[in-house]
């Protein structure tokens, strides 16, 4: 099954709710290519759901804002005329209908011939592995099954755009992970333009062709998951996505000097007095090492041990130590950093918070 999809463009879309002093969304421009999966990522209240609802047609942008589906200006169209598929956080399944009737709803509304509806519904039930549950009532379904019904229902009328509002948030962690993988495969196969809202960065990384990081009603950065992770545009993005260490020191003679020791710059590195790096950029060196820190805490997480090292810079350095080695509090350990950290562009150091 392949869907015809359209690109989406938002132009100067702001949103102020009646009676509110400040807009929940500052004027925003966003381009989404046809067939692309874009994840809107940010903490709650950052405007990501409002952005999704603007695309859906459930909210209208403030004066001046426009929404395009391809060349068509849909700004004035209500949701029922936009031909979108939407999955809500609580799924919004119709409690008085069974699974089959829910999935068929969008097709019945369009008054398609019954045989055609039946065929299409069967196709979707098979796609979402719900065949056996077709006659079940919604109340008899588990959370994961409901999520699949919601997805099948949204896809049945062949939407031009698929909109998902935190579709996995209501599920427990293990189920979330397996459904995430499943959904990823499904979205790739369908090739439908998808906008996915989440506050879960792992979900965003796994699903997004592109991630739009938002905070306080504005876009902080747009990029591929790798861009966002390795080259965060600013401190907000850096701190929201994964864990980011900051090491400050003094640049002298081609090396960074700090309380933990002297770190020699990688060849071709620009002089700098501050480094940003991820826990996995740290290379533990049992014998010696350029930098040293004292284990402040060690948390065993199964696959790795998360260490917090003090005495290196101003703030503790977080390190992921692999393997079966045990670490004791107060232990002094040596490490160096991967050469790439010297080439990571510096996010602007201003700390703005949401």
């Amino acid at each position, binding site marked *: 099954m392949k869907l015809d999809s359209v690109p989406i463009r938002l132009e100067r879309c702001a949103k102020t709710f009646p009676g509110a002093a400040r807009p929940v969304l500052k004027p925003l421009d966003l381009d989404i290519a046809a067939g692309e999966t874009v994840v809107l990522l940010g903490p709650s209240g950052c405007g990501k759901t409002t952005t999704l609802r603007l695309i*859906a047609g*459930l909210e209208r942008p403030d004066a001046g804002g426009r929404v395009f589906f391809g060349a068509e200006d849909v700004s004035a169209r*209500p*949701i*029922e*005329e936009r*031909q*979108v*598929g*939407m999955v*809500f956080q*609580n*799924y*919004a*399944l*119709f*409690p*008085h209908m069974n699974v089959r009737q829910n999935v068929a*709803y*969008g097709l019945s*509304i*369009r008054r398609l011939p019954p045989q055609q509806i039946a065929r299409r519904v069967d196709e979707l039930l098979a796609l979402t592995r719900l065949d056996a549950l077709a006659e079940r*009532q*919604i*109340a008899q379904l588990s959370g994961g099954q409901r999520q699949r019904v919601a997805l099948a*229902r*949204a896809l*049945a*009328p062949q939407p031009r755009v698929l*909109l998902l509002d935190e579709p996995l948030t209501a599920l427990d962690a293990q189920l979330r992970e397996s459904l995430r993988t499943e959904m990823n495969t499904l979205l790739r196969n369908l090739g439908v333009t998808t906008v996915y809202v989440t506050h879960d960065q792992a979900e965003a990384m796994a699903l997004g062709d592109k991630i739009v990081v938002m905070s306080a009603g504005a876009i902080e950065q747009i990029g591929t998951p790798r861009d966002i992770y390795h080259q965060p545009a600013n401190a907000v993005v850096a701190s929201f996505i994964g864990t980011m260490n900051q090491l400050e020191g003094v640049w002298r003679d081609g090396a960074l000097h700090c309380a933990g020791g002297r770190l020699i710059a990688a060849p071709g590195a620009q002089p700098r007095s501050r480094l940003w790096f991820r826990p996995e950029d740290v290379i533990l060196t049992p014998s010696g090492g350029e930098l040293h820190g004292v284990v402040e805490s060690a948390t065993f997480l199964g696959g790795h041990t998360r260490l917090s090292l003090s005495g290196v810079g101003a703030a503790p350095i977080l390190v992921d130590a692999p393997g079966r080695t045990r670490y004791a509090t107060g232990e002094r350990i040596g490490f160096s950093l991967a050469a790439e950290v010297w080439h990571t562009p510096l996010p602007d150091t201003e700390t703005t918070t949401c």
Partner: protein
Amino acid sequence: MKLLKTLQFSVTLALCAFLILPVLMSIAAGVSDNYAQGITHGLTLRWVAAVWTQYRQAVALSVLVAIACCAITLLVGVPAGYVLARSRHRAARLAEGLLMLPVAVPGLASALGLLVIYGSFGAFRNSLWFIVTGHIVFTLPFMVRSVAAVCASVDLRTLEEGAASLGAGLWQRGISVVLPVIRPGIVAGALTVVTLSLGEFNLTWMLHTPLTQTLPVGLADAYASMRIEIGSAYTLIFFLILIPLLILMQACGVNTPMAGHRNAR
């Protein structure tokens, strides 16, 4: 433990007897030849027949009033309950509070109010519609509350958004999603309205004219001016009308798939 159970059972039994016995006595009186001489003296349907001939009109009027009242409260109360539940405006909360006022105010007072306002509109005042109006004032809050309660218990807003995202326009959403989902509230509301309307006495007694006598007003009349057997036979007819209605509507309300699913999300 066993003692407690026995005690519980006896209390329940006593309570049932307390509630049911007068009803049974009344029914017995309605079918006995001469109540003063006891039910053993002989059974007869004479009184029932007499009541039917004399008060047929009142029975018909009451049913008519109840139907009209139910129809109008449905037309007005269902949209009102829906809007009240969906609105987040402060005025909506205020309206909800005000709505219970006619229930709290004694029926006699409501009736006086209606008489003061409409008493001079002769044709309206003397028609059956005047009674219907009184009943609507009294029963509408029950319909609105019943519908609003169901509307508030399901996330109707998101359900409607879901339907809209699938291409359903305003009317299609209303008919295919909103109405079926809130049906238990509508049925419960209608049940309450019809029951209250059929049994309403205070307000109706003030508003009625000799030509617009309803079932309960006729009952008071029968008890006040005729032999006890006639009044009791009247009660019997009252029950015969009310009980099947109650059972029927209860069955409609309970058999909806919504009953157990309201909280499942």
